[in-house]
């Protein structure tokens, strides 16, 4: 019994640290949707800083710890959020995962390098290597007691428990009892609704990251006596604590916290009672990873279909449609030159270096398959490499010929890949990445510990083959042979990509459900991809081992796989050639840096790690970004048209703009030409026709040089040739408000001048909300083609139209959730086009989004408190809605649909907004409730609120509307007073028969 108590108590020590780390993970994940693999590295950095400040500079322990946890660590979190996480939240999940993995490598190296530089500068820092038994916050050595016989505790453990308890209490108070906590929880619950309520989700995200970093810092400082200064150990610790975050499903802080504690205890119990597994070498070592893997399998909710990461749109293919010579010529020439160089210019040393890079390229190309084609992040590639090489080595030692051994090794890796793929079929995104990582560690610690496979530390000799007259024992011959193999692999992968199966793979990647509907087996495709990738990695591993002439089980560890991934993804995954570039860079750059910059081995590690940082801007890697940017610059230089547009903000540059255009759908519609050739030079010119049936892109627009400040916009053209051919509807130039800001947008096309222009000044004051010539859409597909609407205070404008007419998009543009591609939005006469949802909301424009505008995880009271700060105001709401009063502690998600809608509207009655945009407020409600909703809306009108009401229930809405507008095919086809509504028009509007080109009549 004392045993058990001991195990539980001491398990709570590591459990407390797991809890701290997991809580931080959950906080940062819910703030920005990012699983921070570098969380452990942050903890390590704080441990290092604590050690240097305390032991090196002699600062007192407790103040130093407080400074680190409360100031420096949060500052680091804030900086990283600003620099990187915030941008990463907008790119695909692959780039997110990889960028933080890069950080995981870079941060510790950065810390160590700083220490090294400080030591060189003569500061009194202590060396960070070979330091054991480091002092923590408490006494060192720790004092120990034995309260119960056989159960000991020491001061370090007590400090960890106490600190964790304080943090748990503090977090609880913060989250449950303060307005800030309420906002944070609201942001976790529904990020976009938070913005609609006028709270900056970015600022909340910053706060969450600061908290998260602070917690990591605390874990780091507390763990110093336990883990010492091993970045490796901190990272492993983090991976284990990820299990707890999974338990909290990445959103629940309390669950993650309790999960962390339980995890520590469970781990201790298994270690204590796992005698049954004594005969399996490495089992105890692997326990945390078994728990992680099991946790992922059992606890991950099946989110996406068959393990696909976030859909990241492909970049612009600026070479699409060019001749094959243009596409492949440079690469072929490079390959031939490389092959020739082995026998002409390179020294033996460089020959070896390049051959090593080429062998690695084969391995790196496996990422192109699994992550590039399959959008699955596999962190187990190193496992396939080791497995294949060990098997091949084993067979070679039994006298097998090289080719046969390599083939069997490759197959072994492929089988291993298929086994690893099985969880992939269930998990997706970060869960898949974590699961493959857990499997990689399991393989390192159990599979590759099997004596007959690993042959101790000696490993297996993998002599280089002699193929006919070619003796690959010569580095030069090996180099040429590898060039040929790499070229063949590149060609094969490109052919695969363009084959029917390749198209199926891409289909599964971008839309699994659609792929399934078209008869593509998602499961089979995933399995094939993983198997293929593992086989390729395995083959690369055999070749690499043969370059090495030996393989040992520790040559490529799971951690090596992490660095590889960062290096490959930084270069780019879209084309297999990029992997070759990555392989060569990985082999050559450290040498160049050592030669020319610094002897310190930290710098290359930092560079490789920080390459992930660049992904925040160029999620498709530098190999794709450099030529695309150059290409964009060339285009800009040639004056070919990238239309100036507000949509192409600098930060969207490479990301969203690149999406437009070459979306392989063939719709290079004029609206898609939105890439601003701005001062950043980030103009991936999507204006190039990709030959896939693009209809008259920008061809008919007259090019006219920008007549304003050139740096802001660059040359622009009017967009000619919309889908229906005739009505070019540019005319953005002449808006008075814009001219007044000094930013000239030139380029009037052949279209007619907008009739709103003249009215703009006079009427603006009277309207509460006015949309003028708004054109908007998503990812290159235009939805609105010039919408004009105006709502005055105390007026209900009902917006009617068939499905797909653009009603919701109109609402989103009005609320600031979607930035228009052209046109203006005025709030109370002020140009608010550039304001996001937060500023719009603060200006009094409130959107009640489609569905229910509530935070389901928050209670009724909390939902109200987000809009009504004062207790009196809330009490007034309860008086008006006694149904809510009795259940104020109930989570809003538990209410019925009608009650939820009441809850969404109730606070607005108490504090009426200037403008309310209601997107289908009656959706899915019983007729009696619908009446009640419309009564509330009418009441709001009485308070002077301007209402823009989108409805499908035309009959009901016509009873309350003052003005009615019909939306069809992205245009207002008719707009007039309710009295003028004719049944025919209504029918036409609903059936979408109204011609879009019809004149716009306004009262």
């Amino acid at each position: 019994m004392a045993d058990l108590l001991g195990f539980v108590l001491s398990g709570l020590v590591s459990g407390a640290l797991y809890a701290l780390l997991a809580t931080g993970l959950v906080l940062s994940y819910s703030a920005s949707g990012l699983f921070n693999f570098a969380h452990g590295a942050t903890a390590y950095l704080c441990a290092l800083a604590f050690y240097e400040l305390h032991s090196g500079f002699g600062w007192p322990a407790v103040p130093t710890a407080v400074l680190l946890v409360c100031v420096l660590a949060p500052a680091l979190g804030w900086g990283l959020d600003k620099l990187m996480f915030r941008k990463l939240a907008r790119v695909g999940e692959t780039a997110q995962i990889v960028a933080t993995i890069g950080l995981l490598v870079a941060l510790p190296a950065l810390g160590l390098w700083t220490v090294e530089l400080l030591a060189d500068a003569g500061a009194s820092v202590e060396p960070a290597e070979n330091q054991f038994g480091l002092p923590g916050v408490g006494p060192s050595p720790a004092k120990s007691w034995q309260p119960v016989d056989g159960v000991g505790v020491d001061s370090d453990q007590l400090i960890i428990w106490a600190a964790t308890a304080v943090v748990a209490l503090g977090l609880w108070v913060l989250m449950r009892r303060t307005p800030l906590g309420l906002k944070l929880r609201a942001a976790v619950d529904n990020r976009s609704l938070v913005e609609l309520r006028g709270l900056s989700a970015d600022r909340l995200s910053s706060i969450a990251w600061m908290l998260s970093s602070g917690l990591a810092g605390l874990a780091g400082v507390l763990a110093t006596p336990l883990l010492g200064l091993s970045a490796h150990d901190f990272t492993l610790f983090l991976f284990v604590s990820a299990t707890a975050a999974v338990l909290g499903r990445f959103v629940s802080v309390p669950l993650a916290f309790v999960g962390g504690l339980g995890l520590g205890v469970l781990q201790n119990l298994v270690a204590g009672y796992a005698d049954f597994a004594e005969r399996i070498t490495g089992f105890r070592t692997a326990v945390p990873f078994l728990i992680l893997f099991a946790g992922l399998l059992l606890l991950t909710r099946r989110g996406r279909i068959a393990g696909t990461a976030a859909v990241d749109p492909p970049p612009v293919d600026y070479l699409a449609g060019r001749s094959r010579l243009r596409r492949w010529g440079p690469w072929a020439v490079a390959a031939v030159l490389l092959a020739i160089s082995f026998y002409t210019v390179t020294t033996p040393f460089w020959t070896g270096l390049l051959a090593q890079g080429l062998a690695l390229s084969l391995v790196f190309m496996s990422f192109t398959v699994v992550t590039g084609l399959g959008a699955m992040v596999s962190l187990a590639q190193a496992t396939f490499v080791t497995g294949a090489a060990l098997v091949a080595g084993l067979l070679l030692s039994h006298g097998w010929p090289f080719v046969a051994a390599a083939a069997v090794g490759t197959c072994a890796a492929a089988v291993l890949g298929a086994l690893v793929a099985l969880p992939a079929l269930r998990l997706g995104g970060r869960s898949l990445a974590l699961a493959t990582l857990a499997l990689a560690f399991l393989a390192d610690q159990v599979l590759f510990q099997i004596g007959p496979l690993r042959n101790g530390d000696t490993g297996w000799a993998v002599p280089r083959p002699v193929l006919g007259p070619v003796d690959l024992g010569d580095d030069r011959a090996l180099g040429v042979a590898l060039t040929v193999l790499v070229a063949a692999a590149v060609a094969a992968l490109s052919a695969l990509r363009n084959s029917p199966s390749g198209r199926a793979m891409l289909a599964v990647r971008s839309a699994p459900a659609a792929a399934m509907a078209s008869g593509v087996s998602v499961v089979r495709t995933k399995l094939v991809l993983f198997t293929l990738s593992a086989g390729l990695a395995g083959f690369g591993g055999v070749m690499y081992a043969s370059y090495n002439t030996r393989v040992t089980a520790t040559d490529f560890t799971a951690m090596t796989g992490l660095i590889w991934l960062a290096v490959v993804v930084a270069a780019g995954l879209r084309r297999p050639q990029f992997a070759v570039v990555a392989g060569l860079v990985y082999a050559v750059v450290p040498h160049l840096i050592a030669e020319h910059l610094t002897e310190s081995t930290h710098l290359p590690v930092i560079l490789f790690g920080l390459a992930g940082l660049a992904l925040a801007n160029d999620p498709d890697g530098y190999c794709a970004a450099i030529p695309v940017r150059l290409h964009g610059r060339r285009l800009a230089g040639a004056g070919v048209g990238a239309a100036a547009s507000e949509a192409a903000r600098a930060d969207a540059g490479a990301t969203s703009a690149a999406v437009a255009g070459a979306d392989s759908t063939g719709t290079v519609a004029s609206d898609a030409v939105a890439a601003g050739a701005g001062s950043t030079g980030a103009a991936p010119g999507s204006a190039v026709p990709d030959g896939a049936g693009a209809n008259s892109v920008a061809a008919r627009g007259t090019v006219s040089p920008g007549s304003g400040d050139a740096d802001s916009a660059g040359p622009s053209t009017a967009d000619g040739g919309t889908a229906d051919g005739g009505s070019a509807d540019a005319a953005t130039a002449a808006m008075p408000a814009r001219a007044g800001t000094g930013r000239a947008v030139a380029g009037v096309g052949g279209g007619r001048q907008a009739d709103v222009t003249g009215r703009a000044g006079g009427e603006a004051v009277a309207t509460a909300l006015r949309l003028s010539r708004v054109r908007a859409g998503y990812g290159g597909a235009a939805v609105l083609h010039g919408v004009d609407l105006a709502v005055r205070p105390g007026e209900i404008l009902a917006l009617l139209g068939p499905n797909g007419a653009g009603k919701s998009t109109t609402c989103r543009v009005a609320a600031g959730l979607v930035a228009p591609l052209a046109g203006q939005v005025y709030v109370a006469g002020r140009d608010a086009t550039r304001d996001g949802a937060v500023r719009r909301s603060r200006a009094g424009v409130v959107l009640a989004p489609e569905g229910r505008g509530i935070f389901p995880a928050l209670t009724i009271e909390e939902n109200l408190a987000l809009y009504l700060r004062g207790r009196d105001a809330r009490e007034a709401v309860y008086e008006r809605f006694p149904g809510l009063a009795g259940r104020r502690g109930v989570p809003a998600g538990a209410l019925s649909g009608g009650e939820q809608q009441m809850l969404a509207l109730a606070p607005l009655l108490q504090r009426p907004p200037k403008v309310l945009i209601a997107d289908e407020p009656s959706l899915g409600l019983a007729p009696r409730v619908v009446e009640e909703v419309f009564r509330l809306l009418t009441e709001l009108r009485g308070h002077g609120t301007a209402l823009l009401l989108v409805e499908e229930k035309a009959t009901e809405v016509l009873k309350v509307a003052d003005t009615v507008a019909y939306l069809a095919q992205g245009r207002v086809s008719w707009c007039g007073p309710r009295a003028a509504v004719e049944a025919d028009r209504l029918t036409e509007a609903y059936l979408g028969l109204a011609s879009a080109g019809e004149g716009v009549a306004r009262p």
Partner: protein
Amino acid sequence: MPRMTRTIATVVAATAMLLTAACNSASSGGTSNAEDSVRGVTDTTVKVGGIVSMTTASGYSKKDTDLGAKARFDRANAEGGLHGRKIDYLGAEDDGQDPSRNLAAARELVQRDKVFAIAPMSSTTFSGADFLQKQRVPTFGWGTLPSFCGPSYIYGFGGCMVPTPGGTISQTWPEGLEQVMGGAEGRSVAILANDSDAGKFGIRTYRQSFESAGFEVTYAKPAVPAAAVPSDWSAYTKEILRSDGGKAPDAIVSVMQTPYNIGLFTAVKRTGYRGVLTDPTDYDPGLLTKSATRKALDGVHVLTSFQPFEQRSAAMTRFGEDIRKAAGKDVPLNMHMMTGYMSADLFLAIAEKAGRDLTVSSFQKAADGFADTGTLVGDRAERKGQKESFGCGALVQLKGGTYVVSAPFRCYPPIPFK
């Protein structure tokens, strides 16, 4: 597209094959495999490089190995060099415990810097071994890796320290412990190692070693997770402390690294254990600067495979002076310095024997039948050292903040390894 890529691939392949076939035959004579290489040797200098893991993610570093080698080469140069040739020591490349960088470093030193020999080579990985053997580069380092056992160009400064089945096991540790405990008969020991293949191998080796010395081994398990140091040791200590028929064993032998030993010994001591604690890795005066480690390791007997710094001898005094001179200040001595120093020393001793006409062949010939006695690592003999360790060692005990010799430095006959 596929047609095009196929065409390109064919072109590339054809070019490559032609080139390979044309040039391969011509190349075989031109490499450094020439029979009597004088790579790195001029009339006045001999070029030597080193490979050491200095920066690692685990926080373990052998950085000072470089200083040790430098100290030894400095003295050799001060004494007039090798038959009139100065040693041009390039310093050590950092391999960061990364196998690919280990090989890259070996290639760089041989192919670009054209060194005659590599001394020291001290790392946890030695993937450059096959390359160095093939390129005929005499290499000297810490023989804790299998590559130091067998290949004719690779020498461990204390011999090959990895027992191979059919070879021998050094009895230094049990013999030393016998002196400490006043005999082996009737004494029980528990051996603990990491849960990995290497740990399993260590258990197998030392179980045989201690048993054949007469100890009763009551516990020998590779049980401790190898990936990260456990935060809690109770699960392991409980079992060990009951292993001798419910009682604690007379000695606990740890075959693990320092962070593990600190955790284990602290936990064991807290239970009130009074027996002998011993491990093979913690002879590092640097550990004494931290009060927590000083307390954890107090009383522990540490095995060293070289003469302890505390054992005053002429050679040891000279070692201390050389290090101080090379460092430019007083620095605490540690085993990494000794590794570098003695790796350089073995190279110098064999090269000295090779004479003025220094080539790889003459060097190798001198190594055949090389032997000397009374060095800091005991009695050295080649090629025996490429099969087994020199078999010498001592135990030092940490007592009240300083190390004292508990079993003086001696050489013991090895036993066959089954």
